[in-house]
């Protein structure tokens, strides 16, 4: 067996409490457990039923994001939360955290936000950690060289009670991205193009490592966008080797190591990247310089074309036909003809400051097309404050868009921020499944730049038209 190891293998083996055997899966130690209101209530109930306590409250952090309101009066003004059951779920998390001694960044906390945005912001997401959350987009944290993946509620209970998980070792998958992204082509376009190439189950059973010149050239926020959508390719986790970009991002963050502990941590983190020559179970290559802005046309993220392209034809494929019927789009037609009724900029995929800047850059001095409703929802309260300090909120408002408090919002429409039946939404989120953004809603996924350009024209638009 080769002694050369991948980034994944290094992080995995450092967390094996017990290795996998013929009879049992590996017992893996978890360094950071993030939790939120939607996937945790039944786990706390399970602990209560068995008389268990939380083993490591110091490694557990809770926030609320999925079912929370985004209207300021409901978050801060004491107005009732529109959806009763959501309000109840929020109160349940408050009670559970108080009872089990878990730190909660609650509804009015200045550090609250989408769980995958605040972990990095606080500096608690770090290279080499194992990070889990009852949420599939936990893959986002892999951008720091952490092994981070989503778990179900039963497993949330396992981690609360034991700080460990039973895991079968996944296989490794190298995605080599050569070249550089052209102007106007973003990390979102890169990951959409990859999913289009390998399909929505192309990564099932694997942990992806994104590598190559194009990945090294990405900022941390862009790397997070890429790792975030690993799950849309079926991979539970996506990782990027930590480097100077990673360290610079983390340096000085409130929960990053400080002083001598920082130096020691960086020294450990420098040993994490895959050894040259380490072998992956599977590899694909992508040329970043050949990519274009991408947009989805169907009902899964793998149904994607360049904004200037046409919807493919797949005669005799009933599943494809059903997707086209749901979307009300015609195979063979240019996607640029697709009308847009709603624009959503936000989510754990594209709700960070750089995403809002990119959208604002396109919107500055322009108007949202007549009849189009645009919602801009910062990924966290910290992103919101930073954006307001730069005047981005003013640009969006002046264009006719709504500016809200942070949360998942229209990404999954649990809090009442939904797209109407039959309406077309261009969204910077990550899932275009049937009904994801509301019953009968039709979602087209794209970058913040493309979403903003499409808001202005009221149809799917190449953002490069506005970026001169």
């Amino acid at each position, binding site marked *: 067996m080769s002694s050369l190891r991948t980034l994944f293998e290094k992080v995995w083996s450092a967390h094996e409490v*017990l290795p996998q055997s013929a*009879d049992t899966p590996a017992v893996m130690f978890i360094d950071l457990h993030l939790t939120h209101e939607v996937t945790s209530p039944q786990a706390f109930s399970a602990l209560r039923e068995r008389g268990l306590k939380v083993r490591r409250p110091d490694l557990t952090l809770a926030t609320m994001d999925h079912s929370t309101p985004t209207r300021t009066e409901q978050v801060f003004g004491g107005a009732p939360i529109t959806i009763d059951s959501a309000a109840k779920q929020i109160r349940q998390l408050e009670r559970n955290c108080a009872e089990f001694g878990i730190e909660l960044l609650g509804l009015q906390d200045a550090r609250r936000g989408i769980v995958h945005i605040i972990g990095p912001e606080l500096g608690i997401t770090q290279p080499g950690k194992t990070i889990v959350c009852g949420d599939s987009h936990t893959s986002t944290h892999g951008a720091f060289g952490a092994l981070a993946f989503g778990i179900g509620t*039963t497993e949330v209970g396992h981690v609360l*009670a034991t700080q460990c998980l*039973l895991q079968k070792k996944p296989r490794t998958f190298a995605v080599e991205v050569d070249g550089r992204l052209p102007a106007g082509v973003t990390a979102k376009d890169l990951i959409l193009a990859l999913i289009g190439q390998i399909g929505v189950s192309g990564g099932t059973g694997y942990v992806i490592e994104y590598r190559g010149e194009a990945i090294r050239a990405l900022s941390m926020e862009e790397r997070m966008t890429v790792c975030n959508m690993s799950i849309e390719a079926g991979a539970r986790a996506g990782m990027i080797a930590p480097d100077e970009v990673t360290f610079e991002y983390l340096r000085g963050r409130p929960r990053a190591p400080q002083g001598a502990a920082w130096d020691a941590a960086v020294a450990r983190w420098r040993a994490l990247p895959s050894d040259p020559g380490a072998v992956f179970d599977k590899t694909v290559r992508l040329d970043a310089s050949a990519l274009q802005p991408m947009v989805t046309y169907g009902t899964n993220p793998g149904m994607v074309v360049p904004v200037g392209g046409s919807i493919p034809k797949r005669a005799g494929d009933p599943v494809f036909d059903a997707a086209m019927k749901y979307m009300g789009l015609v195979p063979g037609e240019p996607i640029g003809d697709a009308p847009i009724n709603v624009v959503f900029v936000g989510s754990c995929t594209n709700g960070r400051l750089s995403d809002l800047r990119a959208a604002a850059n396109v919107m500055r001095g322009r108007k949202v097309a007549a009849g189009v409703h645009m919602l801009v929802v910062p990924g966290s309260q910290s992103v919101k404050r930073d954006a307001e300090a730069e005047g981005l909120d003013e640009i969006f408002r002046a264009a006719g868009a709504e500016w809200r408090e942070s949360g998942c919002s229209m990404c*999954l429409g649990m809090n009442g921020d939904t797209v109407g039946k039959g309406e077309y939404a261009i969204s910077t989120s990550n899932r275009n499944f049937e009904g994801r953004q509301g019953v009968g809603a039709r979602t087209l996924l794209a970058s913040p730049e493309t979403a903003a350009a499409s808001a202005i024209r009221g149809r799917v638009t190449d953002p490069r038209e506005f970026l001169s």
Partner: protein
Amino acid sequence: MNPITVIRSRTVVMPSTNIDTDQIIPARFLTTTVKEGLGASLFADWRYDAEGHAKPDFILNRPEAAGCRVLVAGRNIGCGSSREHAPWALVDFGFQAVVSTEIADIFRNNSLKNGLLPVVVDEATHAWLLANPGAEVEIDLAEAQLRIDGRDPTPFPIEAFSRYCLLNGVDELGFLLSQDAAISAHESAAPDARRSA
């Protein structure tokens, strides 16, 4: 959790590929704080019209689906969200097994923890099952075989530990709790935050 040994049932067939967990249980039903009762909302947007009436032609609303415990789905069922509400809803409705050629990772894990058996079969068996909705099948967990009269048995993969837990109706938490000493040793040997603050 009740032990699973052999499941004998007719199948319900949903041939769509990539049936995601947002279809199995839409997000608006996730504000619950319990597991029970989600079966009523299983596949809600495919099953009910805008007024909340059952659509008569949707498979789960048809008389032949009554009492079926095996769901045969198109390739890659369970992709998307990690919501365990998806297997909770399927189990609450009465399903005990999901059969496909590919089952998404997190959904598969969640199913195993709720007495819903994920059965990954070869293309030929899958094609036969899709073509014969309502077929009588026998899923034998101890043998890890799916059996259909008149065809060779189809083996399916299942980890030894999960099989043990399902056959005996025990959950995995007990095993993890029994590893307390090993976990403590790991915590004190770790170079970083794993040590107690």
